[in-house]
Each structure stands twice: as C-alpha cells, then as structure tokens.
C-alpha cells in the first residue's frame, strides 16, 4: 500500500520569501504524484501533478515541484510567496492510472504568511 508523509505540520514564511514544502512517498511502482491546495472552508484545488517525463513540473499560481525517485520525494516550491498563498497544502499519491482507484493523501502542511 502506498503512503505519503508531509513532515511539516506548519510552516511560516515571510511574504516575498521563497517556499519549499516537503513530501515523501512510499510506493512500490512508478508513482503518480499530486499537490493540492485548500483555502479555509473550501474544497481542494489541484496545483500540479507528475505522471511521467520531465521531473520538474510546473503548476498553477507560480508553483513547481520536483520528482526525485532516489529520495522518494516530490517537494513543492515557489520562488516568492504572496499573502494569498496562505492555505493548507496536501501531497497525494495515486496508483492505477494515476489514482483511478483513489488517492492517498498526506496529513497536510499549513502555510502561514507573515507580512
């Protein structure tokens, strides 16, 4: 069975500073990896995904993530955060077809932006 670990429960970053959110996964085959963002009281929005190919993937809102098979990681990055980036971020892994039979989520990282 697959699993996802997000080691940081909370992260505080100053507005304009760079951001990196960590995600480690466990899965025996080629993983399908996702990052979702959830604003307070809202549903989840897909930021980006990795299925195959280039290990550096670009997403919406200026986010990118890098897949590193040797480290079983899929860290999310942004060069300069904005106050509107404050939210909960979830990393997820899918198996068959990229998650047709459901995704396994990490517990989330709560991002706080300091002015």
């Amino acid at each position: 069975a697959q699993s996802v670990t997000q080691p940081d429960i909370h992260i505080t970053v100053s507005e304009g500073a760079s951001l990196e959110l960590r995600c480690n996964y466990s899965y025996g085959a080629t993983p399908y990896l996702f990052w979702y963002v959830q604003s307070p009281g809202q549903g989840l929005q897909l930021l980006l995904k990795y299925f195959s190919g280039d290990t550096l993937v670009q997403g919406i809102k200026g986010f990118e993530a890098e897949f590193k098979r040797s480290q079983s990681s899929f860290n999310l990055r942004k060069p300069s955060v904005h106050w509107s980036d404050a939210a909960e971020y979830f990393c997820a892994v899918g198996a068959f077809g990229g998650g047709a039979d459901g995704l396994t989520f990490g517990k989330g990282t709560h991002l706080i932006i300091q002015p």
Partner: protein
Amino acid sequence: DAGITQSPRHKVTETGTPVTLRCHQTENHRYMYWYRQDPGHGLRLIHYSYGVKDTDKGEVSDGYSVSRSKTEDFLLTLESATSSQTSVYFCAISDSDSSGQYEQYFGPGTRLTVT
C-alpha cells in the same frame, strides 16, 4: 470549476440516526469518490465508484455504504451515525484523458456533526 455539487453543505444529526449525503456531477465522469477529512489525518478514501452500480471500498469504509444508480449521482449513507463520523466529507470525480491518465476534481464539501 468542475461541475460538482454536494448536498447538504452542513448537517447536524443525532447519534444513531441514518444520514445520506449526495454528490452530483455534470461532467459525465465515470469515477466518483467519497473522502473524509479530519484534523491531523488529511483526506482518507471511504468508497469509490467506477461506474453505475460498480463500487469498491476505500481505506475507512466501516460504517458507510454507497450507491450509484445514475452516472451523475453518488450517495454516501451512514446507516447509524456515530460521533466518530463527525467530519467534513468531500466528493471527487475523475475520468481518463487522452493519455489514459486520471485527475481528480473535488466538490465543496459537506460538514457533518453527529451529536
């Protein structure tokens, strides 16, 4: 945004009563999912459906049943609600794209409180 609605959006019920949550989609996607979100646990898959009348269990299916009699509707039933089922419930949908890959889109959620 993907056409996914959930009803009700908020519900308070008493222990031991039956509860049914509804997810409705207008995208004609084959796959539909129910997740629950709890603090410190991220999202966990309850059940999913891969077609009309075709369903399967997820990680936390005990105490829940589902039905899908039409492509557009996926119902989640708590036969006898317990306080441990107080949670936020999210519906998601997906289908394969031209490369055979899947991407999940989430509804706005239903907040259920069992007293």
